[in-house]
């Protein structure tokens, strides 16, 4: 099996590629009204494409030209699509070869069932990433897309990732294209369906036809759109409405600002900090976040910090709908929180509550430092006499309940182990029983 992907990434750019419209607005340019001319190419989209080309370790070009890729399709207002010459070529993502990266405009949305076209998104910038046909299994392809998704987020191009994938998959000679898959899960389903379908055709002695198929998200099946005997001829011509675009200046300024490669960074964390794979992924959503981790890891045990970020910080941020990109936690307070937690001075739950207060109010309410634990223990034991009775009779699990009660009464700021020790002391005085 040979699989190649064409991933189309929507960069997080507010306006369309050749006009100032935001989706789903429309204007004479993005609906290709007679006489309209494209405006200057969207600079942010160009910069994002350069970032992608660099992140995928491509050889990046100095000049690009926009070409007209000409074909007839109802969702294409002008019946040609403006697409750039490659920004970069011959790159790679881990061990998957990248053929080229270029920028193009999106078409409208054709509803195949009703035949209606929505031009709202026509003209949106798309960064197309073309891989070599070198993947051998559906899982390899989904792994690639997951890595790509992480990478797009890491370099600040697109999060949450929105993309469309066109794929070609061939078990035998013929090349079957499956178009318009919108999710990683969809890619997996479509591949499995295709592998099964093509396998069946071959095993029954048939011949797989070279064709283009569409993927139906609802049923998870692909269906034939058109047969393809010959290679498409898009009759590309340069679009003279758009002068050649010199990207060398933008390229130099972006290359200066580029941060450590995502996958190298993860490998480094795994090796030098002995972080788990999950924690590595969790602490590297963006370069800024990874640097925060590194600063904290210099002060506290790295594995502990990584695990805390993975389980607590990311969870609390996402509960609040904050992307790590936008999170600006007060680092000084974060450090003092971690300091208390790492030294066992506070419970996990208390650490969590403090974090919540930090994120919501900017700081947490300090508890009085000299809490009288034994007093609290005695009070709780007074209130729950029957529970204490049960404990004395040997039902040891009840101790957990009592410790919880004390912990709550003290606002979760005392480590449970401390409460337990205190409780043992009190119990020892009354009855000689070891819990």
């Amino acid at each position, binding site marked *: 099996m040979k699989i190649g992907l064409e991933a189309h990434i929507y960069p997080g750019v507010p306006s369309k590629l050749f006009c100032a419209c935001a989706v789903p607005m429309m204007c004479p340019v993005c609906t290709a009204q007679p006489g309209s*001319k494209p405006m200057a190419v969207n600079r942010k989209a160009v910069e994002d494409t350069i970032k992608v080309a660099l992140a995928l370790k491509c050889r990046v070009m100095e000049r690009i030209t926009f070409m007209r890729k000409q074909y007839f399709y109802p969702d294409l207002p002008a019946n040609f699509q403006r697409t750039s010459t490659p920004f970069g070529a011959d790159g790679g993502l881990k061990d998957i070869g990248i053929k080229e990266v270029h920028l193009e405009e999106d078409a409208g949305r054709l509803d195949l069932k009703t035949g209606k076209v929505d031009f709202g998104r026509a003209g949106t910038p798309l960064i197309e990433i073309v891989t070599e046909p070198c993947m051998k299994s559906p899982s390899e392809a989904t792994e690639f897309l997951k890595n790509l998704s992480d990478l797009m987020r890491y370099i600040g191009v697109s999060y949450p990732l929105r993309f469309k994938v066109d794929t070609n998959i061939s078990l035998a000679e013929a090349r079957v294209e499956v178009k318009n898959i919108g999710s990683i899960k969809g890619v997996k389903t479509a591949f499995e369906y295709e592998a099964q379908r093509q396998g069946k055709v071959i095993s029954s002695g048939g011949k797989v036809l070279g064709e283009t198929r569409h993927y139906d998200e609802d049923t998870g099946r692909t269906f034939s759109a058109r047969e393809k005997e010959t290679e498409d001829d898009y*009759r590309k011509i340069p679009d003279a409405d758009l002068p050649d675009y010199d990207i060398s200046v933008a390229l130099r300024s972006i290359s200066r600002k580029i941060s450590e490669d995502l996958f190298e960074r993860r490998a480094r964390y795994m090796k030098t900090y002995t972080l788990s794979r999950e924690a590595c992924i969790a602490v590297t959503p963006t370069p800024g976040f990874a640097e925060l981790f590194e600063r904290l890891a210099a002060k506290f045990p790295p594995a502990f910090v990584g695990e805390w970020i993975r389980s607590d910080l990311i969870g609390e941020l996402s509960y609040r709908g904050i992307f790590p990109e936008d999170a600006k936690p007060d680092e000084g307070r974060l450090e003092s929180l971690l300091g208390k937690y790492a030294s066992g001075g506070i419970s996990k739950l208390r650490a969590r509550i403090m974090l919540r207060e930090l994120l919501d109010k900017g700081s947490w309410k300090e508890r009085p430092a000299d809490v009288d634990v034994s007093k609290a223990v005695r009070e709780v034991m007074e209130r729950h006499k029957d529970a204490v009775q049960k404990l004395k009779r040997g039902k040891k699990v009840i101790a957990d309940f009592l410790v919880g009660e004390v912990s709550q009464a003290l606002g979760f700021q005392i480590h449970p182990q401390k409460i337990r020790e205190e409780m043992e002391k009190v119990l020892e005085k009354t009855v000689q029983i070891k819990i």
Partner: protein
Amino acid sequence: MRTKDIVSGIKCGLLDMHSRLEEQEIARRRYKRHAAFITEIRSKPGFSLAVKDNIAVKGIRFTAGSRILEGYVAGYDATAVERLGREFSIVGKASLDPFGAGSGGDTCDFGRTLNPHDIGRVPGGSSSGCAVAIALEMCDFALGSDTFGSARAPAAFCGIVGFRPTYGLVSRHGLIPLCMSLDTVAPMARDVWGVAYLLSHIAGPDKHDTTTHAGKETDYRSGLERYELKGKRVLVPQNLLELCDSGIIECAEKGIGVMKDMGAKISRMRMEGLELSTHAYYLAMFAEFSSDMQRYGSPIYGFRGPVEEARGRLLSAELKRRILIGTLITMKEHRERWYSMGLKGIRRVRMLMEKGMERFDLMVMPSMPAPPWKHGTLNPVDSYKTDLLTGPASLAGMPAVSIPCGKAHGLHAGLQIIGRRFDDLGVLGAAHRLEGFL
């Protein structure tokens, strides 16, 4: 009456605007058979202006002279139209060869446009309606377009002034393309002053057209009076001149003689290779034109019905010819041989022109190699050949003006003056100096 007198007369209140409007209304009714306008627009006070129907005017039917856009109404104003302001009143959308594809100007789908001086002959194209309307005094100004002589040819044939600005001086936003890399919006008027007046309004960079640059001037009128031909170095491409009709050569020689009398230094040179421009242009144009025409397959531009019918029945034979050839020569099998060759030819002509103009201020030659021909007497290839003289300036992106220059065989002839890129004022200045003496 000179355009300058009309404009200043109206501005000072010396001319009665309403009686002028009435006069023009009467002229329009009288000359209806000339089919200068596709759509008439009720005029408001202001300087009357015709707009070629391949330039968008918001809310007005926008046909490009072709049935395929019959029901289409422009939803936006072309930048040039927008910049005119309220001083101008648009009185009509002028006829043209469908999509500007023609040199004769008499193939509009909504009526054959006639030459005002001899109705048996073509008015010159493709901005035929604009030139005819000005010649018949149905309006004072017109916004035409010039790709490969579309404004200069009808100007020459109708005895008015047509100007192709430097490519990039006037925004093309709102102009339906014939060949996007060469199209320009072209001011036309009865005299050079009128053209300069119109140009002052519409020139300048525009965010809707990325090929636009800022010109040197903002007001082209005041510069006209100051311009002197004395000492200017003028180039006459002798080999192109010799290809013309004898009557036309005579007219041109007269114009060149006047320039010499005014103190210009005339040099005659053979510029071999310029005759290539027609071949190169048509190849590149077919390719770009077929690309832009692809969109008229979808039903979103007015026509509701099957695509086959739209493209099969509503496109004229000439349009289909250009689309088919354009599609053919950009296909994988043929593009090296034809399309690439066309581009190469254009680069060569451009280089020749730039090199030729290095040591000269102006280039002078006739606008059209022959007087207007009779309707329906030229086959397509012969009519392509009539663009021979207007071509080189187009390919080089240089400004060029056609001014009336006497008569050959009793028919109007035009003199063409070409200048360096962005020396639009020099071209108009020279034309302004000459026009009274021809």
